């Protein structure tokens, strides 16, 4: 192994580099304000590790025949034949192309003539499967959602452990704890100066928190496990808690070191006394202690502003599902079932999508991290017998849900820029812990994963990457073109760092200047709009 300068720098600084970057101000950079860039993020964590290859088909004919069981299952449609793989735009498919850049294509389980059909046999697979409508939302020609979606395929997570993989998907770097801030926090921080009116820059709706390691306190995630937790957390409505304590006074805004800043802090008498108390602690111990105290200080200021803002009233006036339900094909009380209706569940049973919609529509947030499942809270860690078969049923339903969410956003005008839709100003980043072993060999953890990006800042209808079809069992990814930190184009197998860098690049953030990810990283070529 060559002892390169980069390796040495990386090794010498190790985890400490994050703090160094913070000290020199790098992470506080602003996103470019070029039009067309997203300013919000909806990150959807589908829990447990996904059989991405059961929904998307980024393989050649030979690869499909090698790795995917043939179409079967009747009402439990599972596996697919090369003949049922189609582009979502219905242009001719070249199953001989080895990639790595292809149009979005999937095994089609639905009836194109009657997409809601769930009882007819599918002649394309010799009637081996009964039509399944879930997933059609991505292909529906009335909306052409595929034009706004790109799938990054075969990224190596560097781990096959749940917590570590989640951290890899959120920050780019696998590990037991964060060694780089999450992409959610980086975006929240970058947008904070452009959108100071967003009082909750980084919101987490359940699941492990997208940490803001080393970034200013405002990028720390606010956990709102559900809409029910908003009122008792963010408002001063309850007399039992706030009687006699509501009065706020605009106090001069001071930095932790006492330096006057512009603006004021709407503090209660208790808040003001506490801010004074925290400031006095400065310099009494180590620099690390001061860092902790400064976080608390900034957080207390933020909490004062948050409660003053009366976000509850804003949220109460913001509808969740309002546009898509005008289409009879997409009712608000949608219920999905597996098989012969063995298990059924409604939209809310898959995650708090409605609350995420309210937060995004209300302009209170920059990023929302949503913990999502399939119906009735089904998570995808399907180690059980025939797990891959059950998993495929539930994944189609979960991705139908994600698609409906994106459609609602595409039909909702942006508040800040009426020429765009909410989907245009948001990058939807769908991720999981990792991939899973390919279905012929079960349903275990597999480090090769995918990421689905939908919305602003990207060039849609693409699948970038694929799987090494020379491998046996469960293949890893194939090389793709990446724009490295240096600006050079490289062709190599993508990693979780590259997915994170591509997500951040979609916001106009510049690698090496506005963000840094340990271990090196590149941006998928051709994904981000120039």
């Amino acid at each position, binding site marked *: *192994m060559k*002892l390169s300068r980069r*390796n*040495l720098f990386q*090794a*010498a*600084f*190790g*985890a*400490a580099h994050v703090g160094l970057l913070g000290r020199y101000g790098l992470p506080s950079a602003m996103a470019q304000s070029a039009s067309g860039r997203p300013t919000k993020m909806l990150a959807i964590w589908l829990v447990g590790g996904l059989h991405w290859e059961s929904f998307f088909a980024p393989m050649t004919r030979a690869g499909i025949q090698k790795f995917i069981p043939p179409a079967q299952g009747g009402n439990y449609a599972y596996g697919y034949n090369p003949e049922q793989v189609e582009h979502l735009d219905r242009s001719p498919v070249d199953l001989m192309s080895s990639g790595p850049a292809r149009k979005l294509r999937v095994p089609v389980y639905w009836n194109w003539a009657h997409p809601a059909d769930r009882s007819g046999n599918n002649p394309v697979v010799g009637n081996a499967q009964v039509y399944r409508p879930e997933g059609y939302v991505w292909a529906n020609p009335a909306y052409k959602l595929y034009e706004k979606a790109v799938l990054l395929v075969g990224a190596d997570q560097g*781990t096959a*452990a*749940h*917590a570590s993989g989640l951290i890899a998907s959120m920050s780019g770097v696998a*590990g*037991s*704890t964060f*060694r780089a801030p999450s992409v959610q926090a980086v975006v929240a921080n970058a947008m904070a100066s452009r959108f100071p009116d967003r009082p*909750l820059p980084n919101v987490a709706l*359940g699941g*492990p*928190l997208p*940490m803001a390691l080393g970034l200013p*306190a405002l990028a720390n*995630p*606010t*956990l*709102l*496990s*559900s809409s*029910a*937790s908003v009122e*008792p*957390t*963010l408002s001063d409505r*309850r007399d*039992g*808690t706030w*009687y*006699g*304590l509501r*009065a706020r006074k605009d106090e001069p805004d001071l930095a932790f070191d006492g330096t006057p800043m512009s603006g004021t802090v709407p503090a209660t*008498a*208790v808040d*003001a*006394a*506490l801010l*004074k108390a925290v400031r006095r602690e400065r310099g009494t*111990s180590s620099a*690390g202690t001061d*860092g*902790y*105290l400064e976080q*608390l200080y900034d*957080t*207390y200021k*933020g*909490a004062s502003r*948050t*409660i003053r803002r009366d976000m509850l009233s804003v949220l109460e006036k913001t509808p969740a599902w309002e546009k898509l339900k005008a289409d009879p094909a997409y009712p608000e009380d949608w219920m999905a079932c597996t098989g012969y209706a063995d298990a059924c569940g409604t939209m809310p049973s898959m995650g708090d999508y409605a609350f995420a919609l309210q937060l995004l529509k209300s302009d209170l947030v920059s990023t929302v991290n949503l913990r999502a499942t399939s119906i009735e809270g089904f998570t995808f860690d399907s180690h059980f017998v025939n797990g891959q078969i059950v998993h495929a049923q539930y994944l189609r339903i979960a991705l139908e849900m994600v698609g409906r969410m994106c459609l609602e956003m595409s039909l909702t005008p942006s508040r800040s820029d009426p020429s765009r839709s909410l989907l245009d100003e948001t990058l939807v980043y769908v991720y999981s812990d990792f991939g899973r072993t390919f279905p012929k060999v079960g349903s275990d953890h597999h480090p090769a994963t995918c990421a689905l990006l939908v919305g602003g800042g990207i060039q849609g209808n693409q699948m970038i990457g694929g799987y090494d079809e020379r491998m046996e069992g469960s293949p890893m990814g194939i090389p793709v073109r990446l724009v490295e930190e240096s600006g050079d184009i490289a062709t190599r197998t993508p990693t979780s760092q590259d997915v994170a860098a591509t997500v951040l690049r979609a916001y106009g953030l510049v690698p090496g200047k506005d963000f840094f990810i340990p271990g090196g990283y590149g941006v998928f070529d051709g994904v981000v709009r120039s």
Partner: protein
Amino acid sequence: MNRYAWLVVLPWMAACSSEVTPSTMRSQAQSACGTPATSETLRVMEGLKPHCEGCHAQGARGYFASVEAFQGLLVADARLVKSGDPDGSELLRLLEGQGTGAFKQMPIGQKTYAQLVSEGTAKLPVEAVRAWIQGLGAQQRDARPDRDAPRITRMSAEQMQRALYQQLGLGYDDFFVNAKEFGFDMAESRGEEYLPLQSPDAIPAPRQYISGERYHGLGGGSVMNQVSADRSPSPTLALTLTQVSQRWCRKALARQDNTALFPKGAARTADPADVKATLKRWSLHFLGERFTDAQVDELYTDVFVPLATPTDTEPAYVGVCSYFIRHPHWVFY
């Protein structure tokens, strides 16, 4: 040595050499400073890193977090690396699938490291590791603490709940009644009005989900809910602690015969002398330190007076109580 390896060695030399100038400190400083990592050590670390750092980047076994970690936690630990004795080194045994501890091989999995090398997945041959250990001189661990490291940590959600119960004279029964669900004990909330909180992993578990959410709001983790514990001073902590402290202080003050905040003989009046005596007592009660008269006067003026009305001092007492609970000396320890 690679010319860039000085990037690693020079800071060590600078740090240690500055401490050896006075002759009286020389021996002490030399024993404190660890052996610096050599370029060969760096090469081995980089070679092993892709296969190890996924699990070994943090904590007591965070060997791959930095060069210092690799050198101090692994190379200089004779239990793992015995200088000049590859076969006696657990590191090598683990790579060859012959570990003598809880794990037989590293990385864990079906294949040994040697097999990963033979397949081309790993690039650094076992022989190179063997040769490196063979050539290692005596190693000295660096015993110096990091002067910039934080010396405080935030109370966990569990600690906060326990401390609030004790200091406010409240308990489980003030917030929950026992209920059964499918035969299991559950903590049935006495009312969301009181902002109850309970770990979802506790026995009895909270029957109302929001009681568990509030526990998460304080940074509590849960195996059941797949939520990691969070000890950062996050916005959620500040918002939740503000609400909980105010509501629970009010509940404690309203409870009959609660001597936690007002022991027998302590007067709860609007008289400045009584109030100041209470504030001084509460500083010891909540923070474990006795405020000076000047501190008490300031708190009385800044918080109690603005919140008190001629007919009602209750909000003022609630405010002061909440102040102590959100004070940095309470939140951190």
